[in-house]
């Protein structure tokens, strides 16, 4: 255990994160990078970007509450230290995505109200299911919910957003690249640390599987609300058309996102995340539960 956890030490984190891929960045991107002019000038697209970013802030706030809340429940010093780094990673994500809201024109005094107005209720419910476990100091369920389900979802969402924005918004793509690098550690810890605990506590499996099923449903409902009936649908189609004309291949898991309808994009994202859940949960000995489709 000690050897495995040494890979998740704060020393390693310092060398691989603040002193490596974040070095020289400001709020996660290169100094001087800005949101694209045409995004800021188009009210519908700007509103859509704000709406999307709010969901990221809500998800990261949940991750911050969960990772900090689990430190007290961690059974060993190594896990506590890793969760300390994850707490700060999540706080950084809250900060950089909140800063993006400001960059998109949200006034500081309106931040809380903007987040309240746009937060998807399904995502809020997703967070509540997880935080109920954290509040009970349930380390095993909390880490599965946080580091496999929540982080697995975030990992795939960030990758998709990065694929879409790489060519059209380097500033946001750079911010996402740093968060993806962080999430890699988090999902890695989830799998590696929890596998042995599940073996020690097989009686916990049914309850954890139910949690995964519930969280997965709320996640799918969040995706559905984001992709279907999007008020910015027409403008997003125009952006995608421009990407196609420029020969941009926004590749994500074998699909060129600029050629997909919103419903197809939702399908690719949902299938990718659920497949990831299945594989990761299988590795730690949890039977994946298929959620209802909203």
């Amino acid at each position, binding site marked *: 255990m000690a050897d495995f956890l040494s890979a998740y*030490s*704060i*020393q390693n*984190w*310092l060398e691989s994160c*603040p*002193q490596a891929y*974040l*070095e020289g960045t*400001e*709020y996660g991107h290169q100094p001087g990078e800005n949101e694209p002019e045409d995004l800021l000038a188009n009210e519908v697209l700007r509103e859509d970007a704000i709406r999307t970013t709010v969901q990221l802030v809500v998800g990261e706030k949940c991750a*911050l*509450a969960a990772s*900090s*809340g689990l*430190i*007290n429940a961690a059974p*060993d*010093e190594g896990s*506590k*230290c890793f*969760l*300390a*780094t994850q*707490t*700060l990673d*999540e*706080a*950084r994500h*809250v*900060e950089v995505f*909140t800063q993006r809201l400001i960059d998109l024109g949200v006034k500081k005094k309106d*931040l809380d109200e903007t987040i309240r107005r746009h937060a998807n209720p399904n995502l809020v419910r997703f967070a509540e299911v997880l935080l109920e476990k954290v509040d009970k100091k349930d380390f095993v369920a909390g880490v599965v919910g946080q580091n496999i389900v929540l982080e697995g979802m975030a990992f795939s969402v960030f990758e998709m957003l990065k694929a879409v924005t790489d060519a059209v918004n380097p500033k946001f793509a750079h911010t996402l690249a740093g968060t993806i690098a962080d999430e890699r550690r988090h999902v890695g810890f989830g799998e590696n640390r929890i596998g042995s605990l599940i073996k020690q506590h097989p009686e916990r499996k049914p309850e954890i599987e139910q949690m995964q099923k519930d969280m997965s449903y709320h996640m799918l409902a969040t995706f559905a609300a984001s992709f279907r009936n999007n008020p910015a649908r027409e403008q997003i189609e125009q952006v995608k058309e421009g990407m196609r004309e420029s020969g941009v291949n926004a590749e994500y898991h074998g699909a060129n996102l600029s050629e997909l309808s919103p419903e197809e994009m939702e399908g690719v994202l949902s299938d990718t995340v659920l497949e990831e859940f299945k594989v990761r949960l299988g590795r730690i000995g949890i039977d994946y539960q298929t959620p209802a489709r909203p």
Partner: protein
Amino acid sequence: MAVRDDVHELTGEQFHEQVHSFEFWFHSVEGYLSGLEYGHREGAAEPDLDDAERDRLISVLCNYCVGETAALDGASGLVAIAPNRHAKIFLSTQVVDEGRHLEVLLHRMSELGVADPEQEIAARACPSLLQFKDRLLELVAERDWEAAILAQNVILEALEFAVFHHHAKTADAITAEVLNGIVKDERRHIGFGENELGRRLRDAPNEHRRLREVKDELDHLVLDALEDTARSLGVGDIERHALGRMYIGSVQRLGLDR
């Protein structure tokens, strides 16, 4: 944010946004942690300690670990009850600071030949410090923000700051470097605690009496722990009094000494 020619010309709001951010923490620790491994430069020669000196140092480090674990558990619990985003983000930086302190102290014990540091801590922990930790975590669990900040960021941090600072002057070179790095982090924590509590007490002066009671309850626990550590470090009476001065100063400025 653009840097003005004189930092002292920032508005109060700009100042707080700066110092309670990940960005500030990130660029601050870069100055004194880069190039270090587990809190000290690689390849530094181990001191030549006799058995008694080594044993005393291990006892002291074990109790530092208890204090840092209390601070880690306390700070992480405080994230959930922090009243705003800036406080949450600041406390997250404190969480990783406390985690780092625990890690470098455990690593220092390994370097001194302790095979199972966690077992050693359980065997050598000062009972008063363990009681303090339990009480701190109770305050956090009760979501008592003011009392928990007083216990953690004013009382515990001020005493750690003073003890580590003092110990670093007489410790072997490796332990001294580790402790000096910790002291640099603690400066942020004590400042956050005093300023946060100061603002709260300014806006709710009737809280003074309640917090004085919390302070009175915790005082003897931390002072017992301080006595214990001072004895292991061979600190004399006059220096022992000096160790408490920083804490007393904070308490006086907050008006909690009367």
